């Protein structure tokens, strides 16, 4: 099968998103299902076909989502409504849109450098009567997770909150 000449290929746009909470590991296929479900649910199947969303890369806490040119708005709004993926609660924060994946991958570096990494505090804390451990810490932000349970509750605190506990 020969590929189409460039003038006959459809134009695409790529959206860079950050996956929250930090430290969560997502499979690209599962994220694709979540994004596609969000697009189809909000805009309907016909619009979802027009948007033609696909997750082309997941790199750590960043993902690149593809769509047809001219449908970036629909995709961006649908991405706001993604609340879970494979049973994990997530939020997708749209950072940039571009015509090439390469330029978005160049943006990932500066975004990662913007987050000052803090050493993890190994201590255990008690939040709402539950024993929790620090799962992620960046700057003043501290995510703690209930100890010893699968699908455990996650709390989003700050370093000052931990001092107060």
């Amino acid at each position, binding site marked *: 099968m020969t590929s189409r000449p460039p003038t006959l290929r459809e134009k695409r746009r790529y959206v860079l998103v950050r996956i*929250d909470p930090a430290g969560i590991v997502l499979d690209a296929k599962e994220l694709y299902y979540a994004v596609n479900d969000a697009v189809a649910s909000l805009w309907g199947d016909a619009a979802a076909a027009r948007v033609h969303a696909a997750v082309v890369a997941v790199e750590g806490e960043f993902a690149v989502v593809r769509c047809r040119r001219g449908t970036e708005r629909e995709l961006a*709004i649908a991405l706001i409504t993604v609340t879970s993926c494979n049973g994990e609660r997530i*939020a997708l924060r*749209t950072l940039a849109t571009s015509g090439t994946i390469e330029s978005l991958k160049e943006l990932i570096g500066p975004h990662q450098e913007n987050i000052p990494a803090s050493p993890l505090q190994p201590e255990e804390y008690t939040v709402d009567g539950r024993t929790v451990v620090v799962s992620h810490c960046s700057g003043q932000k501290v995510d703690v997770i209930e100890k010893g349970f699968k699908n455990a*509750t996650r*709390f*989003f*605190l700050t370093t000052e909150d931990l001092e107060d506990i």
Partner: protein
Amino acid sequence: MKITDACVHPRPSGDSSVRRMALEAHELGFDSLIAIDTPACEYGGVEVFSGVEIPLALTQQEVTSTVKHSRETGAFVLVQAGDNGRNRMVLGMRGVHVLAGIHDTDRYAFDHVTAKMAADNGVAIDISLAPLISEREVPRQRVLDRYYDLMLLYRRFEFPLVISSHARSVLEMRSVREFSALASVIGLDIPDVEKALAYTGGIQSPHSPVRVIQ
């Protein structure tokens, strides 16, 4: 002009502390938050206003006493909307700032009379983005339908609006740009969104007719 998320629920109702929500709000482009059942404070450059949310279950007498108490403490008062009679009662009450949860009510709960009362008394109507984000299929369609109807009344009567995330977690908070994008789905354009996000300043110094003081 302060850009405000009109309602968030920090711990213990949610899973995020008010400080963390303030940090997140700052990154998302907000200047202030109304946090339910939380003392007022300032953190990370974000002003946190204390808010009280009055649930639907309370009787008229209980609503009146809670509003009176909140007026003394200076907290923002959000009252959950109910049927038409309750909404009229709430909109006529001094000290109520926001009527919330219109999306949960039936079509007749908020009509042209209540819309005019809201405009006359300066009570803002809350557009909660939470059901637009978290609901799917028929429940979301119902919410969209209620908001389309609300927009029709808004264009006619121009009552104040506020937009809120009703976030119980930092994962449920959205940026100012995302607020605008979601609001565009229900037909709110950017100037309307800006007005709604900045309305908290108006609540602090409400418009009232000029009075001659002798």
